[in-house]
């Protein structure tokens, strides 16, 4: 196929070298690029020789494919974790060498299942981490639970994680090996009601929930909560992902005079919808535009267009203004966000914190186990683990509000919005937190501005 080369290769070479170089630099040099920052720890040169065993950690995330935006911070996060593990992990008086094996799930369930199998039976990992979207995480935890490998996962709403893995709310089956931390539908409710009272509206909500796992979970769980709280829900019904024309929905929303808009779409659908809504005069009626599942990263908001993207509101599961930081690396959240921006030249990405937290939990669980190569010791350590992470303190097995099921810790999702930056700023938009109902330690930066 050498014939095709001229165009794709020719157009890409400059960019390819630039990006490839950055990625390789990230993986190899890690913290070395930012020596001024406090996360550059001294490395004990004798540590490697003293290691008595090896711990293998498998890490599955979407590095390519539709959800690759989530995997984008991974090279940076893994380089930080590798740096923290560089002098080994001391557990019960012994020092273990730690090896992180990162695999790309290609945003595809079948690939996720396949790489999980490779990690379990081929690499024989001691601990399996996975993150971002049900498509990636559910096959991994399925394989881990079946094979008896301890597993930690995040960035899948916990209801989707629990129901999607074949469990039920009414007759729950206990899991032995898989553990999860993430926000859930109730967090959306807290965040939305707290945000929406900051701007006066007629409390009529235009709801766009697609016919997929997340859309159906939202329709079943969030809509009734909002109706109970006094909001009128205008739901035109579930649409299919990939719909190209939204005229009927826009017409209905205009007829019902919806001043709040809320949606859970895949990112391309939102851009299509929002442009058509602008063309048909709906966006100028909307006082609050609350989006989820898209608008997570600045690049997604920029794709909508800076003008249409300004003042979109969303909930965020990690930010550099959050208190604390990573217990494994000793890096504060502020340093993590700044380090990522410096390293990649991009605006901070909320998945950076969530991915980092996976390694915080992993290190704490391995330490608490006493014997990291004993899988049941690691799993039983996870059952009551208490650990400080980038996304706050996580504590399994308390049975409280933050543990709806023993294997799950609920994390917060404070709300805010994308606002225009001053002229001459590096990025056209920035995210500011406007509420902190479920994590009061996150500082509020501004009051919610009306969308239009």
């Amino acid at each position, binding site marked *: 196929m050498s014939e*095709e080369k001229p165009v794709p290769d020719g157009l890409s070479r400059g960019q390819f070298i630039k990006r490839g170089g950055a990625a390789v630099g990230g993986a190899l040099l890690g913290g070395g690029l930012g020596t001024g920052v406090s996360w550059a720890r001294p490395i004990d040169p004798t540590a490697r020789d003293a290691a008595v065993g090896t711990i293998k950690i498998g890490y599955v995330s979407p590095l390519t494919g539709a959800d690759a935006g989530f995997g984008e911070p991974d090279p940076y996060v893994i380089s930080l974790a590798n740096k923290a593990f560089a002098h080994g992990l001391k557990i019960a008086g012994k020092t273990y060498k730690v090896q992180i094996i990162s695999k790309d799930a290609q945003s595809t369930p079948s690939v996720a299942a396949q790489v999980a199998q490779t990690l379990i039976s081929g690499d024989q990992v001691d601990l399996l981490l996975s993150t971002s979207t049900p498509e990636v995480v559910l096959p991994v935890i399925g394989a881990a639970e079946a094979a008896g490998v301890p597993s930690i996962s995040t960035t899948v709403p916990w209801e989707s994680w629990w129901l999607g893995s074949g469990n039920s709310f009414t007759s729950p089956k206990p899991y032995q090996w898989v553990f999860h931390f993430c926000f859930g539908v109730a967090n959306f409710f807290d965040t939305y009601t707290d945000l929406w009272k900051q701007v006066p509206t007629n409390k009529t909500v235009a709801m766009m929930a697609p016919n997929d796992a997340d859309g159906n979970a939202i329709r079943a769980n969030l809509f009734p909560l909002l109706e109970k709280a006094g909001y009128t829900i205008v739901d*035109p019904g579930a649409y299919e992902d990939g719909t*190209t024309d939204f005229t009927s929905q826009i017409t209905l929303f205009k007829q019902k005079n919806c001043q709040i808009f809320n949606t859970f779409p895949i990112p391309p659908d939102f851009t299509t919808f929002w442009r058509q809504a602008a063309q048909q005069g709906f966006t100028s009626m909307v006082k609050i535009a609350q989006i989820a599942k898209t608008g997570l990263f600045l690049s997604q908001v920029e794709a909508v267009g800076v003008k249409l993207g300004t003042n979109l509101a969303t909930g965020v599961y990690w930010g550099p203004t959050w208190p604390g930081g990573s217990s494994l690396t000793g890096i504060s959240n502020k340093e993590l966000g700044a380090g990522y921006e410096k390293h990649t030249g991009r605006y901070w990405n909320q998945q950076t914190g969530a991915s980092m937290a996976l390694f915080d939990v992993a290190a704490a669980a391995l330490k608490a186990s006493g014997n990291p190569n004993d899988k049941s010791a690691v799993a039983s350590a996870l059952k009551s683990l208490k650990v400080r992470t980038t996304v706050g303190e996580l504590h399994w097995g308390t049975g409280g509000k933050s543990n709806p099921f023993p294997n799950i810790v609920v994390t917060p999702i404070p709300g805010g919005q994308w606002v225009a930056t001053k002229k001459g700023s590096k990025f056209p938009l920035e995210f500011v937190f406007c509420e902190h109902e479920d994590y009061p330690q996150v500082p509020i930066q501004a009051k919610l501005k009306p969308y239009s």
Partner: protein
Amino acid sequence: MNWVNDVIQGILLGGYYGIIACGLALMFGVMRIINLAHGDIAVLGAFLMYLLLQHWSVSPFIALLPVLPTMILFGYVLQRLVLQRSLRAGILTPLLATFGLSIVIQNALEQSFGPDVQSLGGQAGSLVTAAWRINSQISISALGGLTFGAAVAVYAALQLYLSRTPSGRQMRASAEDPDTAELVGINSRAVYARATAIAIGIATLGGLALALRSTFSSYSGPDQLIFAFEAVVIGGLGSSLWGALLGGIVLGVAQTIGSQINPEWSVLSGHIVFLLVLISPRGGLLTLRSGRRAPASLPQAGT
């Protein structure tokens, strides 16, 4: 009144489908190649415009000016070096070749531009949000109107080319019967390369329309291919030029009306119309009227 608006929006949407379907129909009509990389080629065009706009802050329409000839050249070279060779090996090999090309383009784009979704709508200024409001229910978006107008212009230009120019006549002759065309001195390889060049040029316009109305990423090609393919099939499998545009309009109207009945039926009703046409004995809206033979009976090209 909602129904009137749905039909209008559906027709405008059909203009978009018509543009992305046009090149697919042309390649199928002339060479019997189903170009599975058609959507990815449209996305490639969009990425080239995006690349230019990273360096110059101009309108996406200006960025089209250098990208369009580049893509046309790419189409010409692609046909000469890849597809022509695969045509020799029978009807399945070009299908596999374009399937491979689709994967190559997707991954090359992912390597070069990363996983982010992109859009050129931001650089097009108020065009993407402007609309003529006819009354409170009906509005015609500037972008939709422009896309539809461009689709009609593309089809009319292609019609003129095929019916009025010697080169166009050669193309029709090769499409009807490549062996006889060769006998009377037509170089079918050159004709095929021209057809692919034109098809990929039009796909680039489709890529621009996609980039303006929505977002694109390295993996958004296949989604575009499905709608383009359905439009081609509904319109009669490349046996009539205007069929693909009509097929696009039928698909667009089916989707907007389906969505009015129930939002879940938007994409589904398009698929249902597609399946109905596929199982109907006529096998396409314009097959009978065009007076040409059904595709299955056409001789294999490239031998």
